[in-house]
């Protein structure tokens, strides 16, 4: 089936259980799908934009109230919607980083965090991870001390991911932020894998900036995200334009420089807004999603030779698994080689793994119903048994 002339209908989530590590938290709610139908046209949220002509001040649809709700959702003072978490990193970096400034990231930081530092001439420096792939407060303290010795000043900014994208491990964010505060370093909390799927309290954490990815974890179309900040930082990051054109003498109202004026002006924003009541509710049920994820991880670990690379017991539904000692032993002699596992999963209606991967790979179980979780756990074990592997009962 086609959408128009050339685009195939994408029905992966209607026909399979999708375990793609980055896709599951961004799947739309029914209300978001309906909003997408109604607001698909370009500048669809701008019908009632009135002076002072700024996205976060539009009252119909209630975008102004949504911004206040977003800030409250993560317990910060002000929020803006942005085209993905990366644009939030960029806005913060653009505000604070100057050429040659040392900026702290971690050994598990996402590449977009590095790019945001690079874009403004900052020097990205990593906090080392532990042998268990955890970023600790102690390691952060040591790195801060090291930077102070080398640069004669503390890092200009520190980015920390609550859960990282590689292992889905939880890092010592509260302790890291505490250490940073003791050194007067503002902290950007990267909640790409938390905001929208589990409760996040930015004020309690002590963060200056809370960044969320709406298309990753808030059931929204891409690119969308949120940048929430403290009142003090809002004046800096959301500063308004002071430019005046030399010839025409035009000025540009109260457009915000780092936001490049308005940000999400159509389907992305209404998708976020339509999903938001459901997102606000679903974070209260994080334990249920985690429980399903743990059941599937345990089912995999029962397959002889399988180990988990992520921390265990799991604290997130994103998991890095090592099947070198199980499924990969089958792949070595299978006629489909490494593709046998993808193929077997596909036959059982499970999608989202990297084609051909049988050694170390990632999956995310977020959003499954209980029945789908049980089905997935059994499917992995059935494939193992059918492949001659031993499964512990």
């Amino acid at each position, binding site marked *: 089936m086609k959408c128009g002339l050339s685009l195939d209908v994408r029905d992966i989530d209607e*026909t399979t259980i999708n375990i793609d590590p980055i896709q599951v938290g961004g799947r739309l709610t029914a209300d978001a799908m309906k909003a997408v*139908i109604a607001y698909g046209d370009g500048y669809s949220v701008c019908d009632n934009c009135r002076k002072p002509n700024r996205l976060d001040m539009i009252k119909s649809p209630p975008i102004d109230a949504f911004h206040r709700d977003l800030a409250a959702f993560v317990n910060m003072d002000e929020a803006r919607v942005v085209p993905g978490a990366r644009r939030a990193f960029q806005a913060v970096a653009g505000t604070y980083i100057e050429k040659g400034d040392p900026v702290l990231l971690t050994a598990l930081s996402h590449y977009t965090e590095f790019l945001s530092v690079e874009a403004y001439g900052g020097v990205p420096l990593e906090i080392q991870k532990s042998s268990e792939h955890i970023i600790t407060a102690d390691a952060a303290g040591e790195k801060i001390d090291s930077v102070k010795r080398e640069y004669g000043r503390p890092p200009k900014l520190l980015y920390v991911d609550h859960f990282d994208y590689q292992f889905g491990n939880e890092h010592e964010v509260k302790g890291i932020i505490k250490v940073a505060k003791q050194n007067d370093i503002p902290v950007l909390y990267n909640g790409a894998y938390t905001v929208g799927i589990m409760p996040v309290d930015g004020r309690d954490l002590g963060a200056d900036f809370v960044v969320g990815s709406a298309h990753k974890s808030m059931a929204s179309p891409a690119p969308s995200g949120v940048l929430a900040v403290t009142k003090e930082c809002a004046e800096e990051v959301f500063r308004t334009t002071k430019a005046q054109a030399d010839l025409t003498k035009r000025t540009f109202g109260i457009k915000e420089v780092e936001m490049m004026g308005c940000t999400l002006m159509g389907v992305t924003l209404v998708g976020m807004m339509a999903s938001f009541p459901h997102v606000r509710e679903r974070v209260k049920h994080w334990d249920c999603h985690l429980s399903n994820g743990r059941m599937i991880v345990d089912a995999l670990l029962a397959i002889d030779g399988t180990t988990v690379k992520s921390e265990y017991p799991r604290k997130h539904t994103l998991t890095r698994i090592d099947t070198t000692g199980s499924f990969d032993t089958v792949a070595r002699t299978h006629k489909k080689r490494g593709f046998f596992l993808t193929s077997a999963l596909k036959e059982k209606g499970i999608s989202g793994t990297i084609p051909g991967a049988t050694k170390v790979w990632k999956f995310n179980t977020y959003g499954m119903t209980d029945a789908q979780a049980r*089905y997935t756990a059994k499917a992995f074990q059935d494939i193992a048994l059918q492949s001659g592997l031993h499964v512990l009962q």
Partner: protein
Amino acid sequence: MSKRAVDSVFQAMFLLTDLRVILRDTAPVHELDESRQAMVARTLAELEEQVKVIRKEMVG
């Protein structure tokens, strides 16, 4: 064209969206329990009503 037709077109698409979500929640085997079957039946009945309105307003 009447506002009634416009409303019914949107409503019909929204009802179909509800069915789409049921397909997602029950993938890959799509075995619907009694509760979901009842929900589908209600949704289809409402959809048929919307189609009737669309036919009346747009075809005559």
